[in-house]
């Protein structure tokens, strides 16, 4: 998927006045946010589990080379194959190659963010295969030809009416000509249409929530069961995963599962948690004959050694975006790439490039809610601040803002001058504000005054008042 993150401001402005999007985003608060709060309140050990989970991830990252190799060995011992890819291009070539060798036509897919990173659907289509998304949300946006707007609820920006129209338009060719307007009927129609695809697929591609070094297993967590039909019915199962998904043991996964489902959907346990370990065994009656894992780096090994290291603890639960006032207001598409919300504002610059990520690091009020709800305690606001600093250092910010910052820093380092100028400015503004005490228009503050008045300062500056209160003159 090509990044349009540099268009952030423009896209955000459009999103803010899109009535359908605003209606759909309203469901997030009552859904994810409330449910998470309730389920976390019910588990007294939640914070302690969060600490343990964080420790597991840190330990793994500190020894990532060891665990990657141990994992690879176990997969091979189970009869599976591990393919390494530095870049999305390499990963795409590997997957297309496997599909070609399998003589595949139809490829079913479980939801995978790494798959989005690779833009695998486009690559499969170009190579003549028919990729079919099977997670209901992913299926909806595949029909709409849109990217996901949330990492666990990809169609969260769509209203029921929009889905009705989409299905009506695309399902007629399967004989479903009636317009379905209720949720049960919509879900059922998708079930029928996709059932046929599941049964006729040659290759199934899933993501992985975890890769287990102890056993060489890949783990997926779903509620619909689509991931399981995807990894059980076709002849070939391909798992796509980022390097950071490695976890040492099944016991460690058990701990992570407890914080993942709660943080993501507010469930104690997702409906289906599945450990896949290699291809079908000799006497098995079902299951794939081939099992492949494509391990993607795509900038992750770089992050391991720098100040964005913590980001590799991320287990992709989506809590940060659910609780972000910016995300809640504009939805995911404005972020312009695969990952959205606070975690996206950090990952997109690191994976796609800071120079093409526009204002993402600034799409944040630094209120800190994301870090507070993050099950892995990732310091997202700090990292966004770090990226802002890099933008400044790399001269990626506008000339006006650089000039303003330079002027401010000149003053801030000269306290006496700062006091004089600020004192004079405050007095002037207070005088200009007059009896109304606010401004309708203000030079250099058009962004502010276009939607609200700017209050005028009341009386003297803080420093002046402070000095007066302490009763001493200039030091």
């Amino acid at each position, binding site marked *: 998927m090509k990044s349009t993150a540099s268009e952030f401001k423009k896209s955000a402005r459009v999103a803010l006045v899109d009535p359908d999007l605003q209606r759909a985003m309203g469901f997030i608060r009552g859904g994810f946010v409330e449910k998470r709060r309730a389920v976390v309140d019910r588990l007294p050990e939640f914070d302690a589990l969060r600490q343990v989970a964080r420790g597991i991830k840190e330990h793994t990252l500190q020894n990532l080379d060891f665990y990657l190799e141990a994992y690879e060995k176990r997969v091979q011992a189970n009869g599976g194959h591990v393919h390494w890819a530095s870049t999305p291009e390499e990963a795409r070539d590997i997957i297309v190659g496997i599909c070609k060798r399998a003589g595949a036509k139809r490829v079913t897919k479980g939801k995978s963010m790494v798959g989005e990173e690779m833009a695998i659907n486009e690559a499969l289509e170009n190579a003549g295969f028919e990729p079919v998304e099977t997670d209901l949300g992913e299926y909806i946006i595949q029909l709409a030809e849109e990217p996901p707007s949330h990492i666990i609820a990809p169609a969260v920006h769509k209203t029921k009416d929009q*889905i009705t129209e989409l299905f009506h338009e695309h399902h007629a060719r399967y004989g479903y000509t009636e317009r379905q307007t209720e949720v049960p009927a919509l879900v059922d129609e998708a*079930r029928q249409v996709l059932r046929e695809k599941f049964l006729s697929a040659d290759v199934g591609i899933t993501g992985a929530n975890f890769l287990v070094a102890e056993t060489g297993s890949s783990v997926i967590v779903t509620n619909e*069961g689509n991931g399981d039909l995807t990894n059980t019915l076709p002849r070939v199962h391909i798992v796509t995963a980022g390097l950071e998904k490695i976890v040492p043991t099944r016991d460690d996964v*058990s701990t992570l599962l407890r914080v993942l489902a709660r943080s993501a*959907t507010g469930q104690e346990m997702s*409906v289906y*948690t*599945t450990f896949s370990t290699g291809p079908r*065994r000799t006497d098995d009656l079902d299951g794939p004959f081939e099992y492949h894992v494509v391990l993607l780096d795509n900038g992750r*090994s770089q992050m391991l050694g720098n100040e964005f290291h913590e980001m590799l603890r991320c287990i992709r639960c989506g809590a940060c975006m659910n609780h972000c006032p910016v995300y809640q207001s504009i939805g995911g598409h404005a972020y312009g790439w695969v990952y959205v919300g606070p975690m996206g504002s950090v990952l997109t610059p690191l994976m796609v490039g800071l120079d093409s990520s526009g204002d993402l690091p600034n799409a944040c009020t630094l209120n800190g809610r994301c870090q507070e709800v993050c099950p892995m305690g990732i310091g997202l606001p700090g990292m966004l601040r770090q990226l802002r600093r890099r933008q400044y250092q790399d001269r990626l910010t506008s000339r006006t803002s650089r000039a303003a910052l330079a002027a401010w820093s000149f003053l801030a380092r000269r306290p006496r001058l700062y006091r004089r100028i600020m004192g004079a400015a405050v007095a002037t503004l207070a005088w200009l504000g007059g009896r109304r005490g606010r401004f309708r228009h203000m030079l250099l503050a058009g962004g502010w005054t276009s939607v609200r008045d700017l209050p005028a300062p009341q009386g003297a500056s803080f420093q002046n008042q402070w000095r007066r209160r302490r009763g001493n003159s200039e030091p």
Partner: protein
Amino acid sequence: MSGARERVLANVRAALNRAGPLPDSVTRTLQGRLTRPRANLKPAIGDDPLAYFIQKLESVSGKVTRVESIDRVADVVAEHLERYALGDRVALAPDPALDGIPWSNRLMVERRAATGDDRLSVTGAYAGVAETGSLVLLSSPESPTTLNFLPDDHVIVLRESRIVTHIEDVWARMRSDKMVMPRTVNFITGPSKTADVEQTIQEGAHGPRRLHVILLAD
């Protein structure tokens, strides 16, 4: 793509400030963590795992029927078929633990993997997890995975003695049973559901619409 493998591992080692592979002493410690895994913190669940299991399973729309003997399983399944108008065919797992159920001769009971047309399957389970109300199914010739996902309704027969308290206890039991990981381990916690349309929860997305657990007293 062995070039990519070496490149990725070299990058990882460079990021971790390592000149080469880890020293043997460290590797041994890490290896030990893999071969002798230890459970981490387990949340408290009270002192009645059976009641806890039932309560958790019911809270996620799982149905629980308790029976005294395996002979009753046939009746419970027949009632289920009738109640939801699912016809008279049963796809039964070829699991020896399910041998000897006195099926009514009005039912067509076939022991096999599932097909796309199956309305109802009956399987056993390796364990139940009280903490979450989950059923644990291990794939094998006796327990084909398709039975857990393709049919409209899934009936699972579970002995009460198979209920463990926490997820970790499933692994502990597998280790003490000397079981290697089968192709698939399924933790199933309620019927299939989705909330992808306006966050409205709808059951029966792609997997079974109903999950019915027959708890067998030991």
